[in-house]
């Protein structure tokens, strides 16, 4: 198929519709407004429904209702709006409903700013909602990757009956890159025999619910969810390892920040410093295997984030004391600079060398 130049937010909308999305419930917030605007324009053309809700809370609860009714449904927002949706996300995860949520992150905390950020890592991977739940988190680094993930996201959500969060940032949402729309790999999807669509007198009522009165029942439910989470970890973990084979320092970075790090890697290589990059594509499940595959050449890891350091916690868990873990981050909508990243890496390697001596 021919390549087209698309803005990230529009491309997400186009890919979602291609992925089967027919219902969108949302509430405006910068920097993702092009997405609901696109959906309001395009969904009616394919027989779908766009509805601007009165709040993010209402929007996610509409998603809950539509998902339980068997629809392919999504919502989108940016950081503070996603914070408001956490209640609904927990209910959706608890009731095991499939849906797709897009967060085009901006700077925080609070009202923060509208420039790109990655400070919702904890919110995305730990969840701001209550309870022992997980959901898949994709962190694409280009418009093309966003499109590929969005096209597949509804299948993934349906396969596991789980919310899927696509975590971009203002940069991913606002930038234009050439994209090609491709069909995702075929997945075997279970029949949706649990949805509410009227019994038609043919079956017992279906109930969409996350309430368990007996503690033992709730524990059993949580054990089932946990087993599902393990299965997803086994099958759906994705990452990219870039020039890690002989690397002495390995950066860990995702999304927009990882693109800048990739430039820093090239720059360091030109200077004779053997740098590499682990780029998690799924933040949950987290690519532990990428770390276990690192060779003996590695002397240090360095997390690079557009935050004051959130993902670094997972990097440290994965390092498990095998390597020192450094950090470089910018926040508030400031974007890291490849030169500064490279300098931080060189400084860290020197420290690591001194410690070895």
């Amino acid at each position: 198929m021919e390549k087209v130049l698309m803005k990230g937010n529009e491309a997400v909308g186009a890919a979602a519709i291609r992925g089967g999305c027919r219902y969108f419930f949302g509430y405006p917030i910068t920097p993702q407004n092009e997405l609901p605007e696109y959906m309001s324009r395009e969904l009616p053309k394919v027989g779908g429904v766009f509805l601007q809700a009165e709040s993010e809370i209402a929007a996610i609860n509409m998603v809950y209702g539509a998902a339980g009714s068997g629809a392919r449904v999504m919502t989108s927002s940016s950081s503070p709006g996603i914070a408001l949706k956490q209640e609904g996300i927990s209910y959706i995860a608890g009731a095991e409903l499939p849906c797709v949520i897009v967060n085009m992150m901006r700077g925080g905390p609070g009202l923060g700013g509208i420039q790109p950020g990655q400070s919702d890592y904890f919110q995305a991977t730990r969840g701001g909602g209550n309870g022992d739940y997980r959901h898949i988190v994709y962190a694409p680094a280009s418009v093309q990757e966003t499109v590929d993930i969005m096209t597949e996201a509804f299948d993934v959500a349906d396969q596991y009956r789980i919310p899927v969060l696509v975590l971009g940032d203002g940069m991913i949402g606002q930038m234009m890159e050439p994209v090609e729309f491709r069909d995702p790999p075929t997945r075997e999807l279970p029949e949706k025999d649990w949805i509410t669509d009227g019994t038609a007198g043919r079956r017992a009522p279906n109930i969409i619910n996350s309430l368990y009165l007996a503690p033992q029942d709730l524990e059993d439910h949580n054990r089932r969810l946990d087993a599902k989470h393990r299965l997803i970890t086994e099958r759906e973990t994705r990452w990219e390892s870039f020039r890690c084979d002989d690397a002495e320092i390995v950066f860990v970075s995702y999304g927009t920040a990882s693109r800048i790090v990739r430039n820093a890697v090239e720059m360091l290589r030109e200077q004779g410093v053997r740098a590499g990059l682990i780029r998690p594509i799924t933040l949950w499940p987290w690519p532990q295997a990428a770390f276990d595959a690192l060779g003996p050449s590695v002397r240090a890891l360095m997390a690079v984030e557009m935050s004051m350091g959130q993902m670094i916690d997972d990097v440290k868990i994965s390092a498990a004391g095998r390597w020192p873990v450094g950090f470089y981050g910018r926040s508030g909508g400031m974007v890291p600079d490849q030169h500064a990243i490279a300098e931080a890496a060189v400084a860290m390697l020197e420290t690591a060398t001194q410690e070895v001596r």
Partner: protein
Amino acid sequence: MSEHKIICAGFGGQGVMSMGRLVAYTGMLNGREVSWLPSYGPEMRGGTANCHVIVSDHPVGSPIIHRDATAVIAMNLPSMRKFEAELVPGGLLVINRSLIDATPDRDDVTVVPVRANEIATEVGNARAANMVMLGAYLGITRLFPLSAVGEALGKVFGPKKAQFLPVNEEALARGAALAGQPVG
């Protein structure tokens, strides 16, 4: 490795965004790797606008241009002041002489002054100043042949604005023609 990192900047309404999109689009249609990143938010609403465009032979790393712009196309004075510092030594600074009286601070870059507004008015559309500027840039860098840009123009503006195509193409050509003239 050929990589062009261009910052287009000016007032809102001067067409800096579409100028950048046109470069990205032309690059894509000619098999190059491209990215286009706009400024967004209050800055955009407040009147000034800019976008970062990268055209490369390799996949684009960061879409952000930071102190490594190969060219800055500045449509007004605040834009020149803000972005000339982003240029690499030897970079290209195309400035709209119709609106910029001052001289740049940088003395290690090639400055190309273009009386874009006057030329645009001459070709019959005052709003085509951006195309004159882009023409000048292309005339110097030879990034794409003008015909390739013309083809992309049709796609960017769509059939609804087809009547503006000839004017825009002429503005591009007039800008490009300046490239042969002495700089200063």
